[in-house]
């Protein structure tokens, strides 16, 4: 907990509005996206900003977890203190996760204010899906950050790879718009299922597709299993290698 507080409370410490920035940042992000796609590069879709932000934040979150810097960045805790090492990963994932939660709070508030149609049963699935995504990301973070400890290059590679992921996940386009090769890739991309669930809930305002939900659960379980296996297998070596 202290680590999360250190990461979150410390982030905007030296500013005038302080903790408010945690809400302000996603809100302003949404404003920027709206302006861009309404006035600068208009899209024919109605309320495209909801679609964008509903997809954008999860993708940013997962890719930040996949960047694999969690352990390397907090090497001093691993090498100098006796704390459960998984806490270092968990705390960094949770810190990023908070951003998503705050962003969704903003989106929901705006949606409710604008009086759009909302499917309440779908809304109930939102925390469930967020949790699944958290588990999936944690698995990813375990795996990638462990590898990064031993092979630093992986971390740098993942940073670039994540830029690509944004374009092969239906964030700026609709999944149904994808044609040919892109369509294949999109549906091989595990992120897509999570993002589509969020799209269903927030943009389309329906109960999410059951197959997407099932895929979310399966992916979360598999990823978490692999990630934690690798992590706990090698965590004892961390202090030596770092």
């Amino acid at each position, binding site marked *: 907990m*202290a680590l999360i507080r250190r990461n979150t*409370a410390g982030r905007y410490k030296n500013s005038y509005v302080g903790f408010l920035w945690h809400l302000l940042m996603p809100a302003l992000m949404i404003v920027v996206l709206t302006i861009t796609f309404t006035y600068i590069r208009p899209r024919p879709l109605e309320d495209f900003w909801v679609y964008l932000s509903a997809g954008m934040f999860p993708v940013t979150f997962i890719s930040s977890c996949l960047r694999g810097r969690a352990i390397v960045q907090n090497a001093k805790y691993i090498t100098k*203190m006796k704390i459960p090492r998984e806490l270092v990963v968990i705390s960094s994932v949770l810190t990023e996760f908070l951003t998503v939660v705050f962003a969704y709070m903003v989106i929901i508030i705006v949606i409710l204010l604008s009086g759009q149609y909302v499917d309440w049963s779908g809304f109930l699935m939102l925390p469930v899906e967020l949790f699944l995504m958290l588990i999936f990301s944690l698995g990813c973070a375990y795996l990638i950050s462990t590898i990064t400890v031993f092979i630093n290059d992986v971390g740098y590679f993942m940073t670039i790879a994540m830029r690509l992921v944004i374009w092969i996940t239906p964030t700026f386009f609709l999944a149904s718009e994808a044609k040919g090769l892109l369509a294949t890739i999109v549906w091989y991309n595990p992120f897509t299922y999570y993002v589509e669930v969020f799209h269903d809930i927030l943009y389309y305002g329906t109960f999410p597709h059951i197959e997407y939900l099932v895929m979310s659960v399966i992916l979360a379980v598999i990823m978490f299993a692999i990630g934690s296996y690798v992590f706990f297998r090698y965590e004892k070596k961390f202090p*030596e290698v770092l």
Partner: protein
Amino acid sequence: MEEIPGNAVVEEVPEVPVVEDDVVIRIRGMKKSYHIIDPSLGRSKLHTKRKKEYPIFDGIDLDVRRGDIVGILGRNGCGKSTFLKLVSEILEPDEGTIEVHGKVASILELSMGFHGDMSGRDNIILRSELYGIQREHVIEHLEKIIEYSDLGIFIDNPVRTYSSGMRSRLAFSIMVNVDADIFLVDEALSTGDMAFASKASEHLKNLVRSGKTVLFTSHSMNTIKRTCNRAIWLSDRVIKMDGPAEEVVDAYSRSINDSFEETLHLANDGSSAAQYRVSTFYRDGNGVEKNEEERRRWLNEAALRDHPMALNDLADILMSEGKTEEAMEMYQKAAEAGNYEARRKFASLQGETLDEIQELRQVLKGFCSSEYPYDYYNYGNMMFKSALTIKDYEEAMEYLQKASDMGWSDADVLIGQMYRDGNGVERDIDKCVHYLSKAANNGHNKAMAMLGDLFYDNKITKKDPEEAFKWYMMSASVGNAKSQYQVAMMLDGGIGVEKDEEAAKMWFARYSSSMVNDSRKIALDILKSRRGDMALSNNILKAMSRSNHPQSMTTLAGKYLTGRGFKKNEKAAMDLMRKAAAAGGQPRTKLAEMIANEDKSGQYPQESFDLIKSACEFGDSGAMYKMAQFYKDGIIVEENVDMYRKYMKMAAERGNRDAKMTVMKWEQRTERRKNDKEKSQSKGNGGKGAPRKQNANGPPRTGANKGPAKGGKGPNKGGANKGQPKGNKNQGPPKNKPKTQ
């Protein structure tokens, strides 16, 4: 129940850990290696291909008890921090076990983990939480922590604005509130100002008093000495030493002084003392290959910083290259900086030309053809005292060695001194002790005192107060004032010997009387050298005899006898001599001679014989020599060659020069006979005859009868020993000796 480092206890690694109550950390056979990149395994870009096991600990056994405050010493990279990490279970050992009983708080790097943008106050809370303290508990004690940190108004400023000292103060204050049984602290007390460091050290001591245990590393020897009750020294993958903090720290700092790398490091930082030491390392090939160029370079560096010994050494080199002018300048500089050797060399260079010294050396060397130890010693001594180059020292050593092999104690002392100071030879304490004890066991007073100093002062050798006391005591009994003082001090403080205040008082009294007499003696010497007031010196002499100083009594008696400065008073002389004779063997021999001279009957008086006999029992070598002559000439006793030889040998063993020479002559003769070489007798006689005439005013035999057994003490003691060969030698080469005083 001191912990003994070693493998003796490895076997009892228990299946079911049986732990005594007070052992909180138990390490058995612990091994640990790191992977390092070894360039010798090729230049592959892939690190994995060049990795090699690098053992950092190889079998560590250690018990730490509750209430121990252990300092961990060692060079950089010896594994101090790794050791603490292993104990705190951040790292795991490859082999062996580490049992830790109690909660561990590892404060491995105090100022890490602060959030720069947050205030000191918030950081206290965050850090404490990381140490596992409840938030409420921290807030409760917040004021106490802030007060302890001494940060005042800065506590509400962001930590990034803090100085490093303030950071470590903050960090340490947080630790104060941490509740654990074992504290591991890495380099904690090195930052922060003095006041805070002592406060922190006090806190650690308090922790220990309340039953906690502390392990900490530090490069500050003083901190460890002050704070710890125990220290371990890690080196070469094992615990090199484990024991009371002071001893371990002393041993460690000695080893650092002897380590080339460490010294080189310091030298590069500009320490002139270290630069000079580096030059000596290069000179002796100690820990590095011999390299004259490097040596010269470092000497230059040190000389530029006016390091007196470097200046002196550099001047020596210049001297040997014939650059006398430059050398003189250097000597002068070094002399001004207080270097005794340089002063002497400068003075002797200024006083006389090198040619004169050379000439003198040649003369003395010429004497050596007699193959007498005395001549060897004289030449060696001369070479040593006037040595300008290493070669000179080497030559001095060679001749002193010859004299020493023949049992000349003065030579032993000088050799010991050379080994001690590293004059012309590599420093070798073992050899130094060997030679000095050889001389001391032959009754050489100066050697005893030097040995005492050597063991008492732990700079060179390991401190050994008991050994020191032994030697001081020996030397004090023979009347060395400084040793008497040391003995008194040690008895008083119970150092190296059981405390005995009564005995201490006694030795203090003896010291003070020797001191008074010493100053009187100095006054006498001065008066004598300046041909000062005869009456005054006679008064001093009288005062000294009144305090039962045997030597002055003898001298005074001599004056009464000859009528120099006094009215001739043979009766007074006789009385004085009798008094002096009561105090020891040497005056007895003299007295016996006086009585014999008085006696006009032509027969050797029985009284004299008795005196001589009792002096023999006192161990006076002069008396033994005399006794030998009695047996030879059949005076009072019957002629008896065996007894003659026996006494002669005894006298020789005790250091009587003439006896030694006689004994040596026997040996040479037997040798010659054995070799069947008809070396002409005349050559042998001529060879030794010539130098004697130059050296001593009289024939050696009579000279030695008057002189003390250990005549080589130098001119200071020469007041009473008119006939002593060495005292007279000074009159031969007058220019050399006085300057060396």
